[in-house]
């Protein structure tokens, strides 16, 4: 029922207020004496010479793509799992076909070395 979510909404508003108060307090409380050295980025005592925003390793991109595939799979599992006591063998047969496709995909990625991390 949609009315079940009203407390959630109220709690969301309260949480936003709390977070807003915390952020505001972070500006108000405590001394503020900035100087050039202090505002520098920390790099273990060395003055940074290059900007920090480098190009990222493609590894992270690959991980994110694989995550999308398998996390969407996990979401498909939920409604199936809840209704399995109604679907029974029919549900098992249907889901196992889907799962087989994904397991083949996982095996393929594994063999191609997509899960290695050098």
């Amino acid at each position, binding site marked *: 029922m949609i009315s*079940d*979510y009203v*407390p*959630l909404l*109220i*709690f*969301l508003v*309260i*949480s*936003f207020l*709390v*977070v807003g108060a*915390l*952020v505001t*307090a*972070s500006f108000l*409380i*405590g001394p*503020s004496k*900035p100087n050039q050295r*202090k*505002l*520098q*980025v*920390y*790099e273990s005592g060395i003055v*940074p010479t290059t*900007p*920090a925003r*480098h190009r*990222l*390793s493609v*590894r*992270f991109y690959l*991980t*994110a793509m*694989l*995550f999308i595939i*398998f*996390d969407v*799979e*996990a*979401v498909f*599992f*939920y409604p199936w*799992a*809840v*209704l*399995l*006591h109604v679907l*029974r*063998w029919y*549900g*098992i047969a249907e*889901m196992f076909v889907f*799962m087989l496709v994904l*397991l083949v995909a996982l095996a393929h990625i594994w063999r191609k070395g997509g*899960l*290695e*991390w050098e």
Partner: protein
Amino acid sequence: MTNLYNDPFWHWIVVLAAMLALLFSLVTATAYVVFLERVVIGHIQRRPGPNRVGPRGFLQMAVDGIKLVTKESFIPRNVDLFTYIAAPSIAVLAALLTWSVVPFAIWFGGVSYWIANVNIGILVIFAISAMNVYAIMLGGYSSNSKYSLLGGLRSAAQLISYEMSLGLSLVPIFIITGSLRLQTIEGWHGGLPLILVAPLSFVIYLISAVAETNRAPFDLPEAESELVGGYHTEYSGFKFAMFYLAEYMNITAVSAIATVVFLGGGSGPVLNWVLWLAIAVAVFLLLLWSRFVPPFGALVVAAIVFAFAGLDTPLFWFLIKVLAILFVYIWLRSTLPRLRYDMLMQLGWKVLLPLSIVNVIVTALVFVALT
């Protein structure tokens, strides 16, 4: 049900009061989880831990908190201001909202209280806790520091890798209970607690949850020896305190969810007052024997246990179970060394993910065959 009174006005007053009480107790409890961790790790390493401020160091966290928030919270040069501030805010917001659907019912006279009782409680929790990735990645990216960037990236990759096994580990529970509603899962009556029905799920859940909350031995995002502070290297004062608060709130939240899903939440043996008195006396003698608190303190603790347990609220058993899981968390931290990053990713992708899929398959087959 949440319908406390038929009068709608008083109903919402009670709901609001419950929310404010939850917020207050969350922040206090979080501080004492940190304290518990420091004391337990101290004793595991054969040193006393914090014991100077207040009786047995009990006020240590209050002092630490005041010191942390009154420190200068400066903003380094060249940061992306909006995302720099948004990151700790998202962290705290996600940590608070996760608690909104956790059923920690207190009941008096058959009426129970909780914030929200929604039919997709678990999904709400997953949806909200997934926002942590944003907090960590934005924090790392906006800081304009190499350590922060690397820490944030690593952490994001770690979180999304373990999120799959975390999500899949609970699928057998949904198969068995046939519901996503946390209250239904908690009240599932199958003769056994769900941890014994689906033990593999519990193990996978616990490992993934440790990785999801960036705790040792999976605390790679803040591996001090290589990344200084990881994604929060450039955060100081209050903003750092927000990240810190969020981390410990998340730890308590995943422990609470494990309690609700696997350990039966607030259910526990129904005892009469004589047995409660016996338990209180046992607690008193144990504390006296451990010499952790002076005799008077032990008496106070025993009295609190007796009074609290005597109310016969499910909150008592709920808190005991949450504390037990928290203790395992702390125990892990003080026992296991940190994993190397490639080992961490391999564990997630090559061990936990296939294992959780197999777990789903086996549970589904056994479930349909038996029912």
